[in-house]
């Protein structure tokens, strides 16, 4: 016996979660399971949903105003080109529906400009409501607040950068102690917990709740600004209430500035997605990797791929040493890129470790890079090459397996960091792969 499902998604990042949700949506009676190993890059990512911030290969042209315009001109083999721009729109609408009012930006096709912790401005398609009052296109003056114990956000520096970048408002930064925190390397979750639970903290005026203590610290420093930006640590489970309380106490709007990893907005998005998975009855198995597979002919373990008609019969999940077979009709591979470990490299080769799907790359490893450190490196685009149905293709351009699709950063043909398209590609390909898998399974 094996654990049996209709659709099995491997990998629980943005792409895998979206694929599983889309599959459950497309075939409500299907049994959908998601198996994931370690935590996904969502915990590092800003929580912003970028579709396309810069045209591939032409960053000097500056941020794109309308990402959808640019989708039509993408080079062949780009994941967006594979699924088509209509699917990108559908996937984004699906995302909007899934996260409800936790995200903003769906009123327009244009990219929003969100200030980041370094004081740069990032073009993005969707942003958490917590960041909404911080947009750089808004002309209200802003006070940025940093904390002595949180070196990752230098508020005065970020404010200066924003002004230098030509933001249409004046920005000022202050650095203050965070009530209740003395450790200089306190975890972001510690800040969030203090505020979530409004723990009581010692202040000069005695013990008060952390929210009130923080508001008091800030109100003394306000100089007529009508909005205040904090690093993204304002609560986790109760982030909305924390922000609302602070805004009430200060009498001005409060927003969060997305931070580098580890990132609470990323964690909150992860919670939202996993909540949605639970609601739709998707079965989630986490903490354990898929390590192997078998094709339909039980004894023919096709480690070398095979012809396009091969079907994956089952995959093997390693439960802390015990090997547990999982069988499904359709599979989606969403194991991430070099960071998520869905694609691995050794000195001599780049490979996909579960199914050994073909990863196109130059024979000579010296051709994986270009001389300019900030140049257009081929390795940034390493990943699987899929057909329009998102089935990974082998070296002869035949599908590796009839019932395997791939989504997210495991795909090649795009450079998410340069073009700012990471979350968008994961959403679009996850949505298409999940939907097709469910439809074909029926």
């Amino acid at each position, binding site marked *: 016996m094996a654990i049996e499902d209709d659709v099995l998604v491997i990998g629980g990042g943005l792409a895998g979660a979206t694929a599983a949700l889309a599959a459950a949506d497309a075939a409500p009676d299907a049994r959908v399971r998601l198996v994931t190993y370690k935590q996904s890059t969502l915990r590092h990512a800003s929580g912003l949903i970028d579709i396309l911030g810069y045209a591939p290969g032409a960053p000097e042209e500056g941020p794109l105003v309308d990402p959808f315009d640019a989708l039509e001109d993408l080079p062949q083999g780009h994941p967006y080109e594979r699924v088509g721009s209509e699917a990108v729109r559908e996937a984004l609408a699906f995302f909007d529906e899934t996260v409800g009012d936790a995200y903003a930006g769906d009123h327009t096709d244009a990219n929003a400009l969100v200030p980041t912790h370094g004081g740069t401005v990032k073009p993005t398609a969707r942003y958490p409501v917590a960041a909404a009052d911080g947009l750089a296109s808004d002309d209200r003056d802003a006070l940025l607040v940093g904390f002595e114990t949180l070196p990752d956000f230098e508020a005065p520096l970020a404010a200066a950068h924003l002004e230098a970048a030509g933001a249409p408002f004046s920005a000022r930064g202050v650095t203050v102690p965070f009530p209740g925190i003395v450790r200089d390397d306190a*975890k972001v*979750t510690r800040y969030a917990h203090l505020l979530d639970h409004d723990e009581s903290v010692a202040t000069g005026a005695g013990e008060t709740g952390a929210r009130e203590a923080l508001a008091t610290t800030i109100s003394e420093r306000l100089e007529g600004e009508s909005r205040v930006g904090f690093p993204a640590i304002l609560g986790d489970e109760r982030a909305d209430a924390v922000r609302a309380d602070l805004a009430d106490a200060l009498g001005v709007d409060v927003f969060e500035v997305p931070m580098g990893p580890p990132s609470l907005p990323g964690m909150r998005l992860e919670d939202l997605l996993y909540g949605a998975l639970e609601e739709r009855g998707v*079965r989630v*198995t*986490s*903490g354990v*990797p898929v*390590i192997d597979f078998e094709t339909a002919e039980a004894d023919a373990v096709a480690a070398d791929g095979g012809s396009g008609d091969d079907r994956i019969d089952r995959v093997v999940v390693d439960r802390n*040493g015990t090997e547990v*077979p999982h069988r499904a009709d359709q599979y989606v591979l969403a194991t991430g890129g070099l960071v998520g470990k869905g694609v691995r490299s050794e000195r001599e080769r780049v490979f996909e470790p579960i199914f050994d799907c073909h990863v196109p790359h130059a024979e000579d490893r010296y051709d994986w890079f270009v001389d300019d450190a900030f140049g257009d490196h081929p390795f940034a685009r390493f990943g699987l090459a899929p057909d329009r149905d998102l089935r990974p293709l082998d070296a002869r351009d035949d599908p590796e397996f009839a019932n395997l699709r791939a989504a997210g950063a495991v795909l090649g043909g795009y450079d998410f960091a340069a073009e700012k398209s990471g979350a968008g590609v994961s959403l679009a390909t996850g949505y298409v792969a999940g939907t097709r898998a469910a439809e074909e399974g029926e």
Partner: protein
Amino acid sequence: MSDAEQPTDDHVPGAEEEEFEPVQVFPEAEEMDLRPGADNCYKCSTCDTNCPVAEVDDEFPGPKFQGPEQWRLKRQDDHDVDDSVMKCSNCMRCDSACPSEVPLSQMHNTARGEYVEENMDKLSREYIRNRILANYRRLAPLAAAFPRTANFVMGLSVTKWMGEKVLGITSEREFPEFATETFREWWTKRGGAKVENPDKRIAYFHGCYSNYNTPEVAKALVRVYEHLGYEIMVPDQSCSGTPMFANGMLEDARRAAETNVRELAAALEEGADIVASCSSCSMSLRQEYPELFDFEDTETVAANTWDAVEYLRVHEDLEGELEETSVDGEEFAYHAPCHSRNQGLDGQTIELMELIDGIEAHDVGDSCSGISGTYGWKEENYETSMKIGEEMFEHMDDAPAETGLTECPTCSMQMEHGTGYEIKHTLEVLEAALVGTDDADGRREAG
């Protein structure tokens, strides 16, 4: 590609070309070297954001420091292990967080062992207290021989006061009650296995708690497995070692592990697979043994150990069986223990409960219960433990259920302590569904 010979922590496809050496902690403690693992850390801090202790305790520096940074420091000069390692609760959440395969809990376990060995005064109250807590199993037989007296004495306020003042065991908690008859006594009295079956055989690792404190869980396992035609062996066994790892008592853990590996390997020879009903026990056999010890059959035992429910899901059509069952309506607030979560078993109970007509189980989310075995028993950790548990208590209160459900005995203590709910084990619900409670009553009367 076969990874079968790969030890667990790095058991990920594509990682096999990286050398992995099992670490034998004792007797050559000074030879352990986890530097290669430390070098994998790229300081992303994902582990820190998963640590329930760092979230509520400003003084705890978090897993990244405890693990890779400390190992790196230790290599550079003659650093002692930092005493904050004793504040780690051994929940092992950081382990499954790290995207870079840093063996965090292995680092913590070895660091704790070294700290206790080299920096802790063996006559100190803390050492003695920890040793007692870690070796609860050695006291248990005594208490079990006179359960009523033990329960009475443990419940006395003067005993608790003494416990706190003299030993540093919190007086806030109720000592777990000892059963009037241990599971092993019951098993012997009933004449051992009722089913013989050379083709379907399991060796049951019951652990301490279901033997001494909750034999009803162990009996539920017996009845469910026999119902499905399994022959059950109950080999001699020692404590799984979990409380010992958590207290840095690696020498004690090694002794216990040696017995367990020997006895369980012998059962494997007889064609049995190993199943455990406690998630920390299965975690220990599967992951911590191969990480810390290299007895002859450590790997074989690890590779053939299963969670009791998981085993049935894979080897039987458990879902099919459950689909036809119904019980008188009952609602549960289910908490997945950290050590189930780490084994990919967090969704299992909910999935199965959905199939039983009349049962509703509500997942109370992914927070840690906070007690982590002996951790929450220590006076100095009690407050932290309850702060961590707060989220779970709130979610249990919010769930439309007044009975709790979990697979970990100490989580169940914490759930009960924080909410006053009665707590059951998944196996008990399966017993009710598959075998029926009327029978169960009959069995109880028959002894």
